[in-house]
């Protein structure tokens, strides 16, 4: 019997025992020691609740803790061949009663030493991710009607191929993108409030490409003053605060663009809303 099967059986047994309760919070947890894994791919699917992620301070490949409403959800916590899947899952029948779900959460920490690929799907709830210091290679986040904060509190340790976020009607704040070391940054949002903070230690020399699309809502762009930025913008009913930029053809170019070792080019599309720019000195 494998660990994942044991977990599944435990969840099944617990469901049988608690099906009649209104909201029964139960816990599953798992941890695995790091043993020379070459990579770790993490797939998170979490529809309702709070999610947090950070780097592991010890020697674990990952540690995960899921608190879930066993009446309506099943935990998903499986590891095999460098692939970690976790979150909660439910069939449609058990979600008919859409009353408030409180206390459901997933906490995850992963090794900062193993090359990491992240694939997150969040529904309604809060997500708080600190990806700083991780060996990120690729990040994909799809978030729905949620409040999400993604932070790169310190520089990542590997070149990151891509950072991609898609959000529905959400409030999303991404801080310290300069620490992400990603060569491609894509953020698409349907509606909501979006803050993209590009401060941090820019390790990627040359031009970092970013595509930002926002249908309806406000976008705040924060740049460090030493970063060369060019923005190509398409907008319909959106305002754009061009403070610190000069317009050259179709592009808005920052004054230090040519001199900067690290450059950022943003292809920006905004339909309705405000696009504001803030320059952070000395970062």
């Amino acid at each position, binding site marked *: *019997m*494998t*660990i*994942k*099967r*044991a*977990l*599944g059986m*435990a*969840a*099944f*047994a*617990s*469901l049988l*025992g*608690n099906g009649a309760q209104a909201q*029964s919070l*139960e*816990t*599953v*947890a*798992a*941890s*695995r*020691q790091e043993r020379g894994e070459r990579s770790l*791919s993490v797939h998170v699917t979490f*529809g309702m609740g709070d999610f947090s992620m950070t780097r592991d301070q*010890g*020697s674990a490949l990952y*540690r*995960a*803790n*899921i608190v879930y409403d*066993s009446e309506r959800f*099943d935990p*998903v916590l499986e*590891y*095999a*061949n460098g*692939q970690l899947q976790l979150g909660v*899952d439910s*069939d*449609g029948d058990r979600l*008919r009663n859409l009353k408030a779900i409180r206390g459901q959460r997933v906490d995850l920490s992963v090794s900062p030493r193993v090359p990491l690929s992240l*694939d997150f*799907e969040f*529904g309604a709830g809060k997500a708080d991710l600190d990806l700083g210091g991780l060996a990120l290679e690729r990040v994909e986040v799809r978030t*729905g009607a949620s409040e999400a904060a993604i932070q790169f509190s310190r520089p990542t340790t590997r070149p990151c191929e891509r950072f991609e976020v*898609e*959000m*529905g*009607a959400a409030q999303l704040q991404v801080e310290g993108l300069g620490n992400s070391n990603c060569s491609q940054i894509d953020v*698409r*949002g*349907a*509606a909501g409030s979006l803050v993209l903070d590009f401060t941090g230690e820019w390790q990627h020399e040359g031009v970092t490409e970013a595509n930002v*699309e926002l*249908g*309806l809502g406000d976008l705040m762009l924060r740049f460090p003053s030493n970063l060369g930025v060019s923005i190509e913008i398409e907008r319909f009913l959106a305002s754009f605060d061009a403070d610190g930029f000069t317009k050259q053809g179709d592009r808005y170019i920052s004054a230090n663009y040519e001199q900067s070792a690290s450059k950022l080019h943003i292809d920006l599309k905004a*339909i309705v809303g405000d696009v504001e720019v803030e320059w952070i000195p000395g970062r």
Partner: protein
Amino acid sequence: MRADRKTLALAAGMLLLLPPPDGLNAQQREVVAHAVSVSNNGARVTFELEGGREITIALENGSVLVDGSTVARYSPNSEVYTAWHATLEQAGRLSSTELLAAVREWQNLASEQAPEVEAEITRSLDQLAAAEELGAELAVRAEAMQGSLSAALIDQAAEVTERLQLEMDDLVIDLSQINSNSRGLAIQLDELRGQLNQVDKLGIQVDNARIHMGDLTIPRERTIDTDLVVLAGDVSIFGTVNGNVIALDGDVLLHRGGSVQKDIVTVNGRTTRAGGSVGGRVRSSGLELRRSAPPPSQNRRMVSPVSNGTSIASLLGMFIALSCIGFGFTFFAPRQLDIVADTVTDSFGKSFFAGLFATPLLLPAFVILIVGLAISVVGLLLIPFAIVGSILAVIAAGTGGYLAVAKSVGSTYLTRRAAQGHAVTITPYRSLLFGLAGLMAIWIPAAVLGWIPVMGPALALLAAIFTWVMVTAGFGAAILSRAGIRATFVNARQAGALTDEHYWPIDTGSHSIPRETSRRVD
């Protein structure tokens, strides 16, 4: 309490099989992973040792289970159980080594609670050690039997090949897996026979396949042009399989970018889609001991918010288009639009039912019209015009009716705002825009939250029903008022008197309530 002590002694004895947390006993195997489940009914922990061996200890529903077997009972109110529960509750924050240390602390507590625990532990250890020796002996025998088992495996594979009409040239069996799986190989082969019968029942036509035993990863750059059968292992697909994928006693994990052109079939396993595409169907068979999560991409895949943005843009476009049409109606047929709007306002129920009953009569009426025209030579020539005209009339009635409803809603809203003392400019155009925005606003939640399972379609259905009711009422009002000519269903009290349009004749442009009279009084 005595039962508890015996129980805990057994469990504690089991724990002693595990290595010490600090690696004091180097020859013993290391704990590499753990999994914990804590519920109201109990708590269980599974430790995975180096080499793959697992030990599961559970205190659930009053029973102590070791590797799934009940060894004794316990009282849920006992201190030892409470401590066990608390120990495992913190497992999410602990590494496996730390958890093992915490469990050993619990073991000490269990020992203190039971004077005879030491003897029980010793007895348990003896039994378990014996079991270990027996296991080791079996493993040695299995090694010795490897040759014959390999032959048995090949015989079984040949049988499988014959049954599935495989071509021997494409048969790939990883015999290196036999060493690690030798102990259960004979059992597995028996199971496989049964599972293959189930595949037959599923009606899978396998013409040409590669067979692999054990875990398999198809890398991104690799393409398999045949069917793929994976026995007793999980298959991770990053690349492309141009045929069916059949997993027996294993899972199929389809990654982003991975592709299976035909069906995916699992027997005693499941398919998980973390992206990727499947050309055929995803099916499963066999007894599922675990609760399998539905594939994320199949049932829970979120639609890209970009498509939500597209929906919002479509909604905005529809609003603009209807506004333009509404402006046309307001400009060219203001009186008719007013009468239809007033008909809806004063006789909403009648209008709705008129529209409801008239809708199914449209086709018969259309047929009668065409037949009537066809019986005369002149009429025959008019049929093409009648067809186009009828369709346009129905569209105009439906659209105009909906716009009239919008105007009615907008007018009501603005009039109420004015009555509350706000400085409000009321014009027919403004009323139409406000009403249209109000009616179409119900689509915004559906457009924005359409990706949410269950709720998204429910919101879209709600918006569709609401819009259908409004269109039907408007259509009915257009019929009752004879396209805005007859004000029969307009309340006499209001006709020509109280609606905003009559209060401020539309041909004089916009009007506003004087500020002195419209200032809000707080």
